[in-house]
């Protein structure tokens, strides 16, 4: 029996090695090791042996089985590897062709800027509110400490609406978002941390002006609000929006509805705030993007006591600050792609819109 076993081993290993395909290998396995296989049949005969013989022959039979299985696995993996590499040729495709993309939509540059600005202020608890875009003179001017004959009103080239005058004056297309200041205060819910973004309208159209544009207005009213807080919020905004390397400065300015009033400058991203840039010939020249290293961002100030009063807020108990400026300008200052002609934003040329 021992001899028979050895003879079977030689035949088994030989046939495994000679199998040329995975199918042949499988039939060799069935022929010897299958339920009705030759090797299996031999194992069944072990019972007829004496206990000693059974022990030695049994052990040997097990070794042979392990040896055969290990060789089978080895050969199997050889065939599997061959199969895997041949699929590359058999199922070759041109991977340089473009993929199938989901439909590609675009949101406007202004929407993107609004989202980013809203998000930045949201993180410090400024909630976005909505206020009218067509409003009364009272909210747009008078209540902001700008009486009818004040020259400050000349700066706002205002559109008027054909409508009867009421006790709140004429109906206007808002020339700035500051109408939301008194409106928000009159809701009587203090403290206030508001952002209002709306369409604004002025009678101007040229490369740097469009008759409709967007502004955002920030309003903060609480007890003991000081200039330090205004600086804190503006600095936070500039760093969040323009990047950690940019700094802001406040300069004195004059607005009727704030006192003190400020102009906010942000350091120029092109020349790094030096006012000196390199030209094409690598020479130092005056930076063309900024004024002496600074870009004007917009206006801000501490809310004027008269405006607080008009909003029904007691200036003895509360103080606050407001700021606001154009979305379009802010966005174009960030991208560094200063729009040569701002009107392109509202031309709706798909060649422009589909770049965003």
């Amino acid at each position: 029996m021992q001899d028979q076993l050895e003879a079977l081993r030689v035949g088994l290993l030989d046939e495994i090695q000679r199998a040329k395909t995975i199918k042949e290998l499988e039939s060799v396995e069935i022929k010897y090791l299958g339920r009705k296989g030759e090797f299996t049949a031999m194992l069944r005969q072990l019972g007829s042996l004496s206990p000693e013989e059974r022990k030695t022959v049994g052990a040997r039979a097990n070794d042979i089985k392990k040896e055969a299985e290990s060789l089978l696995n080895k050969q199997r993996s050889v065939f599997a590897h061959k199969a895997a590499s041949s699929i590359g040729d058999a199922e070759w495709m041109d991977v340089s062709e473009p993929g199938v993309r989901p439909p590609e939509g675009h949101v406007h540059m202004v929407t993107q800027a609004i989202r980013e600005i809203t998000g930045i202020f949201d993180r410090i608890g400024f909630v976005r509110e909505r206020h009218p875009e067509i409003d009364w003179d009272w909210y747009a001017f008078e209540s902001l400490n700008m009486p009818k004959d004040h020259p400050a009103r000349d700066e706002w080239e205002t559109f008027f609406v054909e409508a009867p005058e009421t006790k709140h004056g004429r109906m206007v297309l808002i020339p700035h978002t500051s109408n939301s200041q008194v409106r928000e205060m009159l809701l009587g819910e203090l403290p206030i941390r508001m952002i209002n973004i709306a369409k604004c309208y002025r009678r101007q159209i040229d490369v740097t002006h469009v008759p409709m544009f967007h502004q955002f207005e920030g309003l903060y009213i609480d007890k003991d609000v000081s200039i330090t807080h205004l600086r804190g919020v503006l600095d936070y905004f500039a760093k969040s929006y323009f990047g950690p390397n940019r700094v802001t400065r406040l300069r004195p300015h004059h607005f009727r509805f704030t006192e003190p009033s400020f102009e906010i400058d942000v350091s120029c991203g092109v020349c790094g705030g030096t006012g000196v840039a390199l030209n094409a010939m690598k020479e130092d020249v005056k930076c063309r993007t900024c004024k002496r290293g600074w870009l004007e961002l917009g206006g801000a100030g501490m809310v004027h006591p008269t405006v607080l009063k008009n909003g029904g807020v007691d200036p003895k108990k509360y103080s606050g600050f407001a700021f606001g400026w154009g979305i379009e300008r802010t966005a174009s200052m960030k991208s560094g792609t200063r729009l040569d002609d701002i009107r392109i934003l509202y031309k709706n040329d798909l060649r422009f819109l589909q770049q965003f």
Partner: protein
Amino acid sequence: MNSLVSYHWLKHYVDLHKISPDEFAKKMSLCGPAVEKIWRRDDLLQNVVVGKILSVDAHPNADKLRICMVNVGEKQPTQIVCGGSNLSVGQYVALAKVGAQVKWHGEGEPVTLEAAKLRGVESFGMICGANEIGLADAFPHEEKEILDLEKELGKDAMKIVKPGTPVADLLGLSDDVIMDIEVTANRVDAMGMIGMAREASTILGRKMLWKPSNKIPRPTPHPPSLKLRGTGAPRPLSITIHDKKLCPRYMGVRIEGVKNGPSPWWMKQRLMAAGLNSISLLVDITNYILLEYAQPMHVFDVARLKMKGKAPEIHVRRAKDGEKMTALDGKEYNLDSHALVIADTDGPVAIAGIMGGERSGAYSDTTDIILECAAFDPVSIRRTSRRLNLFSDSQLRFEKGLSSEGVPFAMARAVELVLDLAGGHVTAIEDVYPVKEKAKTFSVTSTEVEKRIGVKIPVVRQKQMLKDLGFRVTGTTSTIKAIVPWWRHFDFEAPVDLIEEIARIYGYSSIPAILPVGELPPRTTDPETVWEDRVKTIAQGAGLTECYTYSFVSQALFEKTLHDPSRAFRISNPLTEEFSIMRTTIVPSLLNVVAENQERFREQSLFEVANAYVVKNGWNELPNENLELACAFYGHADGFKKAKGFIEHLLKELGVTNVTWKRMSEQGFWHPGRSVQVFKGDELLATVGEVSPQVTSNLKIDGRVAMAHAQLEAIFRFAGAGASYIPPSAYPESSRDLAIVVDRGVEYGKIEHAIRSVDPLIVHVEWFDTYQGAGLPDEKKSVAVHIALASRERTLTAEEVDVLMAKVEKKLAQELKASLR
């Protein structure tokens, strides 16, 4: 308002020793007027020196050229070939040496001079015309004329100058810079050199060198040296103010025996620095006061004034309707009673505070003058200026508000300059001041100041800052009482203005930046803004491109798109007809975008989200601002389905369920056979359809456009409301497909409804195809649907499903005359 300031000139009023223009600019910008630009005045005068012409000889090869030998202070004279038409021996000229930068014929970018041969003769530089070294405004000249320094500056000026002296030194321009400074509208005082110096003195902590004076030499009515016109004039000047509200103060000084002519160079170059041209000495003096004191003045020629009696009469009055006056700009202006004028006995001789009249101005033959210095009501000046469309340096300052108290100071200085430079005698001083201006006083506590600024500043320091700015300050250890100086009279309105002064002089850059903490605001984010953003995200994800169109549209666009423009608010002062009405729907604008892009983009999927402005209860109420969504699909084979599908998708994404779609067959903007509306209950959410071919052809659109128009506020009201879920069933669904043959006119909606109404075990009905054509009668169509049946309690048996399907078949046959294929 921007002001051009010569740094050299400014140094006459405030000690700026060892402060560079750059340092000045930096510090001033942080605390006050912002210096926006700085440029050197002598840029074009480097290497340009005074030369004296020793000889002028003909050029052997050119008729129009001369060969000059010029003394430039070196051992050997310099040879120059020059084409100047006014060359002469002994002349002092501006000579640009080799290496200098000049503008050829005054045009283009500067070029660097090199030694050259001109028609065979060597030339080592250039004798310059004024325009070639940037002095054309100072010394206007004919083409080809070179700058004759002695002629322009006078013999005295040349006596002390040696050939070789830099021309910039001779002209007093060396190392000077011009600063372009932004002055805010409330600080008209800082438009003057004195006001600017005062700012600099406080901000930089430097001494003021200028001292105010309002002393005018006593008048000598009958100096024997003067021949007065007429005989025995008792009063050489009379002034009457007829409207003291519009003119609170008017001062006139008569000076006789003056001689008008060109101004001295020092005055000319200062006017030039500020961007003003020299006209004549007397006019230049008034402009010089404008620049120094920010106080406009005017000069009248007495000989040109009409008089009834023996003395000139000045009447400050409102114009009479229909009165006319030709101003110094040569134009005639029609006046009315709103305008304040200065008049003689005949009529207006000046529009008060805005511009003088041509008839009575100072000319070269003027010898007897009245200097005017006055205060006018700023609102009146502004209104008149706008009404007449007439603007001037004078009006610009008056309309910001100038104090009555400044008048005598400016007048004293003007008289001093006239007597110095034009000679003459003061023969009358009249100062009519009916309403005395009362200085304003404001008080704040130092605690208020600190609270508002957010830093501790000792009260002594707070007071000192105000004193430096010219306030008279009293008060206790905790309060500040400040009297506003006259030059800030119109600027100051409230105690908080004092805080601003202290804050800016303290320096905004020294105030720390602190993020506020504190109570949460009670108001929360407007949910509409959040949903709006979500809509845009959904639209972008669906492949649509966002547009932004103007809120105002033309009447024509509304008419072409069959909308009623009479329901829209109108702009009373539109820029153009294009922007004349406020749109009541945003749909036409988006359709217009399709039209404008159709040449380049044969397939478009667009959207916009914006407000439409719709009249509420009447024209005397603010309109409703309705947030709308518009979508447009152009060039797609199945545009309608795309538009409808997008709205279905949007509603699903926003969680708006159980909506009903209803066919719309109105004729108008929408295609009457291809439009539908979706409702939630009775509330309209959106309209979807093809745009009527009539409308598209009005807009010259080639092909059909499908659009959707959604009322976002209505949609948001139902959005995400009560979001919940149904647990997945434990039992399998059975499904069957049916091909239902019906008349073409039977709507799918009816089929689905009929199937669903058979039994609640029918949980899902889904359309997947509609077929018309071969194999079917002409008037029939076959609608293929997929039906799912399920129970939440058990698995349905095949027999149960068959029974239900038989019911479906029967129902369809009964209600819709349908058969199954």
